[in-house]
C-alpha cells in the first residue's frame, strides 16, 4: 500500500481503525504514522479546549430588554443587593465592585462629623452611590463565593475561608465600636479599611476562580 492510498482512506479510518493492509502500512510507514499521531494529538488537544470566553454584559442586557418587550418577563424591580447597572455583571464581580462603591458611600458623610481642625484624610475614594451597607456582601454572598472557590480551586478554599472569617470579624468589631461611639473617627476608618480588605479578598477570589 502506498502512502497516497493510505492517506486517501485516512478520513474514514482514523477514528475506527483500518483494515489489515492499512494497519500494516501504519505500522511500517514512519511518515504516515507521524501524520496520524499529529492528527490524533490535535483532536486530543481540541477536546481540552474549555469555553473560556465570556460575552460582554450588553448581551444579557439585550436579552432582558427583548424579553420584557415581548412580555415574557416582568420588568425587573430594583433589588437591594445589586444595582441596576451592575446586575449584568457576574454576581461575584458585581459584589466586589459594590463593596468598593459601598466603601465610598460610607465615606460620603453618612453621619460623619468633621472635627474642627481635623487633618484632612487623603484616602482615594471610588465614585459614590447611596446604598445601604447592610445589604452588601451578606453571609449568603460569602457562602456563594466560598462555594465557587471550593468548586474551582479546592486547594485555595481553606485560605479564603479563614481570611474571610478574619475580615468579617474585623467588620463586626468596628461596627460594634462605631455603634457605641458614633463620633470615633478612627473606628470609622477601621470599618472602611475592613470593607476595603473584604473587597480585595473578593477581587482576588474572583480572579482565582476565573
Amino acid at each position: 500500500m502506498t502512502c497516497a492510498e493510505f492517506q486517501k482512506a485516512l478520513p474514514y479510518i482514523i477514528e475506527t481503525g483500518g483494515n489489515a493492509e492499512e494497519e500494516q502500512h501504519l505500522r511500517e510507514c514512519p511518515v504516515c504514522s507521524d501524520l496520524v499521531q499529529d492528527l490524533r494529538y490535535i483532536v486530543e488537544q481540541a477536546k481540552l479546549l474549555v469555553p473560556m470566553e465570556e460575552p460582554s454584559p450588553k448581551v444579557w442586557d439585550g436579552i432582558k430588554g427583548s424579553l420584557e418587550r415581548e412580555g415574557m418577563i416582568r420588568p425587573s424591580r430594583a433589588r437591594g443587593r445589586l444595582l441596576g447597572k451592575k446586575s449584568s455583571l457576574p454576581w461575584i464581580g458585581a459584589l466586589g465592585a459594590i463593596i468598593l462603591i459601598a466603601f465610598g458611600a460610607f465615606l460620603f458623610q453618612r453621619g460623619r462629623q468633621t472635627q474642627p481642625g481635623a487633618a484632612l484624610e487623603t484616602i482615594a475614594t471610588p465614585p459614590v452611590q447611596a446604598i445601604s451597607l447592610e445589604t452588601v456582601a451578606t453571609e449568603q454572598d460569602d457562602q456563594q463565593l466560598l462555594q465557587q472557590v471550593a468548586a474551582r480551586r479546592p486547594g485555595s478554599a481553606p485560605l479564603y475561608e479563614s481570611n474571610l472569617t478574619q475580615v468579617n470579624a474585623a467588620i463586626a468589631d468596628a461596627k460594634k465600636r462605631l455603634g457605641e461611639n458614633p463620633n470615633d473617627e478612627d473606628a470609622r476608618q477601621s470599618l472602611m479599611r475592613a470593607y476595603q480588605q473584604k473587597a480585595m479578598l473578593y477581587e482576588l477570589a474572583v480572579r482565582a476562580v476565573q
Partner: protein
Amino acid sequence: MQNTSRMALGLVAAVALANGAASAQKKEFRYPVSPGASISVANEFGPVTLRAGSGNQIVVTATRRSSKVEVDSTQHGNRVEVRSHFLQAAKPEEGRVDYEIQVPPDASVMVRVSAGPVKVQGLNGDISIEGENSPIEVRDSHGQIHARTVGGAITLTNLYDGHVEAMSVSGPVTLNNVAGKVVTANTTAGPITFSGDCAGEGQYSLSSHSGNIDVSLPASASVDLSARSVMGSVENEFPLQPPAHPTMAVNQGKSFAGTSNAGASSLRLRTFSGKIRVQKL
C-alpha cells in the same frame, strides 16, 4: 635503553549528573521591545523572579516540571503576556513552572500567582503583584508598586521615590528602607514592621485591624507622627516633640503624637485592637 616515559592518559571521568528533574523542560522566549514595555505573568505554582536585564528585550525562561502544564507566551506590540495553564488536572508539583524573567529596568510588570514566591529586583516601572499565599519580595526599585496577598508575606526593601501600597489580609508586611510620596500598608490580622527614615516628604500610613505595628526610626527621621489603637495599646520609645497644633487627642496607652526634626513626612499608625510600638533604630 631509552626509557619511554609513558604519560598516563588522564581519563576524564565524566560525571553523569543525576538529573533530578528528568521531566523538567526549559523554554526560553526572547522578545524585542521598545522603552515602556510591559509584561504580565500568571502562574499558579512555582517561583517568579523578575530582574532588570540589559538591552531592549524581555527574556522569559520557563522551566516546567511536567507535561501536564503548558506555558503560553505571546507578544502583542510592546506587551508580553506569559501564562501557565494546565493541560489536565495536576498536583502542585506537577503544575509547577519556574520563571526567571529579565526585563528592561523601565518595564511595567504585573504578576498574578497563587502559591509560588515572587521576587522583583531593580525595576523602575509600575509593579503590581497579586498572590494568595505567595511570599512577595520587591527590592531596589522605585515607581508605583502595588502588592496584595490573601495570606502571603510582603517584604519591600530599598524602595525610593515611589508610590507604594501593600495590602494583605493575614500576611505579614515588612518595609525596610521604603520611602516615597505615598507609602501605605494595610492588613486585617497580619503584623506590619517598618524601619527607615520616612524620607521624601511623603505620607506614610500603616494600619492594621488586629495586627501589631512595629516601627523603627533613625534619629534623623523627619516625621510628623501620630499613633492610635482603638482597643489595643501603644508604646513609644522614640523622641518626639509635642505637636504645636494637636489634631488628635492624646490618650495615655492608646495614642500619642509628635514631631521629629522638621516633621517633613507624615507617619500615621493606626490599629483597631493590635499593639503599636515605635522605637529608635
